[in-house]
């Protein structure tokens, strides 16, 4: 432990090794940073959104990347939305034979390669979606910079138009879209689908993936981004659209409804009772009975009375009962709408196939092969149970009381 004369060699050894390490370190510091993939943060072209379209002329891929403009991005949005050049983003586009090719082609314009780790959303143009996403999705899953949480969307028309919209509150359209989709819970009229979910559905032999559909609404002088529903895919190709109610019908079954508004006629038929969905639980049990498939869907819903447009006091047991029944009916109708749609498209958007697979794995092998024929014949047994659990701030409506009448 105590250094003695014998350890003089180790002393010298230690000195030399430390000197060597020191020299090597500093030598390497400046020699290696260049080749080790160091990239200064201000040299990055930070991509926050991407759009994939089909080039009309050549049939190649037209990639639009929304790149952050660093010199203006930090300023307040007031400045940014001021003039035409005050935009905080730059939509740079390029064409290529494949997406990766196009991503690399962009460097001709940006001078640096795109940095797509912060990509919030990938928007596919309508034409691409109809052609099939299978061959375009690969890059977004494979690229190491892409995150599996990036959202996937389909544009009503062209993806580049959506990225060009100028939102009022957010600086970047891509961020705005991400925010719109992320907060679907207020209405449950659509839901967010990220890369991993989409890939998961694509890998399933039966389940048809859904992707939110975004479009642009022209209002006076500003263009707003609007999520108008979802599109269903089958075998990677877009086959049809689902409107808001149909999507919610689907979400009821999947138990993914977070919140939303339900409008039912009031018991006296004079006005409407408006309910906010508070909590939803659902359970789907598949059953194969005598060769026919029955899906037992059990939904438990709790809501609060958030608004009423009638003078009648709805906060009574009797009224509640009637409203609950009516609500159940509304929910059932929404579910049926979704089911009708899916039957019409013959796309298993509910994932009934997977459910059967998990429960009847031995019989599944025979079912799988002719699922397309079997799917429309599936019978449904919907059981909805609803509850009104609160009436918010009012106990009674603002009206003259019964006695005074």
């Amino acid at each position, binding site marked *: 432990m105590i250094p003695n004369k014998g350890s003089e060699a180790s002393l010298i050894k230690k000195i030399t*090794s430390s000197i060597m390490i020191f020299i090597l370190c500093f030598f390497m510091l400046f020699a290696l940073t260049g080749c080790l993939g160091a990239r200064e943060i201000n040299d990055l072209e930070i991509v926050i959104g991407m759009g994939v379209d089909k080039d009309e002329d050549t049939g190649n891929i037209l990639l639009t990347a929304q790149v952050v403009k660093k010199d203006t991005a930090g300023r307040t949005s007031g400045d940014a939305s001021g003039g035409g050049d005050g935009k905080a983003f730059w939509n740079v586009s390029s064409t290529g034979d494949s997406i990766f090719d196009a991503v690399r082609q962009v460097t001709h314009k940006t001078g640096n390669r795109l940095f797509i780790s912060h990509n919030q959303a990938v928007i596919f143009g309508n034409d691409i979606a109809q052609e099939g996403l299978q061959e375009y999705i690969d890059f977004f899953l494979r690229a190491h910079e892409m995150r599996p949480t990036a959202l996937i969307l389909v544009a009503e028309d062209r993806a580049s138009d959506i990225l060009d919209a100028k939102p009022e509150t957010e600086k970047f359209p891509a961020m705005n879209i991400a925010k719109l989709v992320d907060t679907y819970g207020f209405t449950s009229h659509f839901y967010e689908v990220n890369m991993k979910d989409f890939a998961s559905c694509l890998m399933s032999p039966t389940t048809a993936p859904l992707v939110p559909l975004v479009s642009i609404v022209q209002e006076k002088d500003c263009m707003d981004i609007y999520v108008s529903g979802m599109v269903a895919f089958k075998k990677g190709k877009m086959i049809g659209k689902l409107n808001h109610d149909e999507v919610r019908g689907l979400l009821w079954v999947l138990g993914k409804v977070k919140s939303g508004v339900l409008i039912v006629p009031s018991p006296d038929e004079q006005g409407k009772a408006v309910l906010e969905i508070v909590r939803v639980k659902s359970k789907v049990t598949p059953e194969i009975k005598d060769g026919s498939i029955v899906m037992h869907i059990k939904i438990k819903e709790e809501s609060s009375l958030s608004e009423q447009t009638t003078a009648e006091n709805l906060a009574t047991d009797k009224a509640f009962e009637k409203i609950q029944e009516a609500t159940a009916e509304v929910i059932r109708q929404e579910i049926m709408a979704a089911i009708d749609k899916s039957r019409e498209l013959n796309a298993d958007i509910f994932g009934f196939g997977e459910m059967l697979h998990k429960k009847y794995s031995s019989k599944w092998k025979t079912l799988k092969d002719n699922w397309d024929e079997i799917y429309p014949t599936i019978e449904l047994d919907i059981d909805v149970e609803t509850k009104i659990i609160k009436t918010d701030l009012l106990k009674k409506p603002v009206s003259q009381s019964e006695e005074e009448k």
Partner: protein
Amino acid sequence: MIYLLLIYAFIIIINVPGLIKRKEWRELTAFSILYAIAFALSLMYVLDIPVPSPMKGLKHLIVDILGIEYPQG
């Protein structure tokens, strides 16, 4: 290449003087043998001479000659 030489010079500086001082010739021999192998392999790697992979040979032995293999897929 220059890094390679530096690293290997470093290995010698760290190990050899002590070995000689303590007169551990057996250790020195073992060290030299392994050092020579390591240096040769590194040199081959740096000069892009293909280094034989023992696993390839093993695979050949087991799969192609002995015929033991798990079905793929």
